[in-house]
């Protein structure tokens, strides 16, 4: 398994995550999609770190994981706050930005 397979895997995971983000109705589902996209990036980081025999990519991956946790915490807090106000987390109904 060369670098190519890792990159393809990362692309596939990223595409699945993007698909989830754009199509899921549920706000929690969207957050899950974002998580998939971030992890696709992590796969890339780690794969290239191994390929280049450099530790920087792995450090970056660790940072990303830490930030992702924080992001999920904030994201879920926002979802709960929205749910309290709107009584729904359906993304189709959250269109306050409508022009």
């Amino acid at each position, binding site marked *: 398994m060369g670098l190519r397979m890792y990159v393809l895997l990362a692309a596939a995971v990223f595409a699945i995550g993007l698909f989830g*983000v*754009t199509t899921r109705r549920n706000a929690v589902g969207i957050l899950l999609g974002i998580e998939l996209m971030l992890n696709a990036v992590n796969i890339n980081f780690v794969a290239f770190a191994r390929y280049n025999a450099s530790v920087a990519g792995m450090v970056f991956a660790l940072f990303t994981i830490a930030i992702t946790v924080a992001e999920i915490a904030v994201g879920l807090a926002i979802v709960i706050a929205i749910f309290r106000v709107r009584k729904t987390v359906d*993304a*189709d109904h959250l*269109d*306050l*930005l*409508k*022009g």
Partner: protein
Amino acid sequence: MTSLALAVLGLPFLAFLLLALAPPLRRHGRGAALVSIAAIGGSLAAALRLWLVPLEATVVRRWEWIPAEDGPLVSVGLYIDPVGLAMLVLVTLVAFLVQVYSWAYLEGETPPSLGRYYTYQSLFAFSMLGLVLAPNFVQMLIFWELVGLCSYLLIGFWYDRPAAARAAVKAFWTTRLGDVGFVTGIVLLWRATGTFDFTALFAAAAAHRLPAGLSLTMFLIYLGAVGKSAQFPLHIWLPDAMEGPTPVSALIHAATMVAAGVFMVTRAFPLFAATPPVLGLIAWVGAFTALLAATMACVETDIKRVLAYSTVSQLGYMMAAAGAAAPQAAFFHLVTHGLFKALLFLAAGAVIHAVGTNDIREMGRLFYALPQTGTVFLVGTLALSGIWPLSGFFSKEAVLAAVWNARLGVPFAMLALTALLTAAYMFRVVFLAFFGDRQPGGHPHDAPAVMAVPLWILAILTVAIGVRGALTGEGGQSAPRWLPAVSLALAAAGIGVALVTYQLRLVSPAALARALGPLDFMARRRYGLDAAAAAVYRGLVFGLSRLIGWVDRYLVDGLVNVLSAWTLRAGDRLRRIQTGRAQDYVYGIAVGFLLLLIASQIWR
């Protein structure tokens, strides 16, 4: 020399600046009047001082204004020659007397408007003096336009009267029409010769080095004089200009506005002399104007309008003389006419002041009530009619001799007939207003000394120039021997007609009018010229306004409206992209990024 000339020019300008920039002084009225009168008085003294010193040669002083590669393109400066000096004295003298006279004439004005009046007067004097001293066409044009502006301001001095406001606009527009020709002519002349400067142009003319084909150019320049000096067909503004205060009429008719045109023609005469067809035209138009205006003066009943038409008529005389290649005769008549026309206007002002009406039919026997005013008016009338030995006789004869010597038969006949009519209509005014048997209402009395003294000065000067002419012989023109007799006979005949008709009443004016039926009918309607001018003006202005209005409403506004409608519609369409759903935006970003990626692969 130069500094004296600068003082003549600068004093009225300083007075104007002071009055314009210091509102408390201007609103004081009498204080403003004193400043203005003092300035023009100083100017008069400087002009007299200049005039009394014999001038060896023309003095030209220039300061560079618009620099160019080979010498300045336009300079400003002073051009001092005998004609200019005489004109300076005339302008400052008449302006000074008019300003002194106005002190009493306009005593009923509120202080602010009196201050405004004297501010305009100072600017007017400055403009005219600058025009007289101009050493090139550009400076002349600038002051020429300033003179026009000041006339506009002063004719419309009582701007709350609709008639005065209209008259001011009419004067401005009509003269502007001629000025279009003037500007075009100056530019064409510059293109042909490469200079605006009088000295250079006159030198070229004297050496016959002027380029050929200048006729159109000089005709256009002459158009400027047609407007300013009220020649047919642009004479229509002058009678209407009577709506201004009487001293203003005196100033405009004697020394400033209308004199500017004649002065320009005399000044630029060497150039006109190079184009004989234009000269011929000037003579014919001048003579025709003289006759036309004289007939209209015969049927006017407003004393100031009679004088206005007589000014038009006498301007025709001057132009005819210039056209007959005798600019010195034209200028001589300009000076003498300036003096006695100022006298007549100021005297008429005193009469109006005393009686409270302009209509000569409501006056009568004023000579007994206003002996002083009557006497000076009579002096002015005799001079205007050309009676020996008053100044008008000599200048008029010089004009007639010049026209005769130039072999202009028909213009000469027209001018001779005009001389008869002039005497007739002026004495018609004298007999109706000052003699006759009708008693005017109220208790008219002579004008106060402040008004009377300028009148007497002008009357004495009118007589003095005439007596000097009688003692020293004629001013150079070789007149035919029979001319003095003929011109005196014509004047006497005119006086006789007026005497028989209006004083002795042997012939009733109505019968005379019937005998000259069609002419009377036409003259009373001003030959339809005013109506025609108004119709043309309306047609042009309204037509142009309609066209521009249409373009503005449908093309300019239409374009803007279409653009705004498109913007609105496009905005409305684009608005729908903004769904407010975050997912759609993410989708947009992803698709956009993808497209960019593909594009970067295609056009790498």
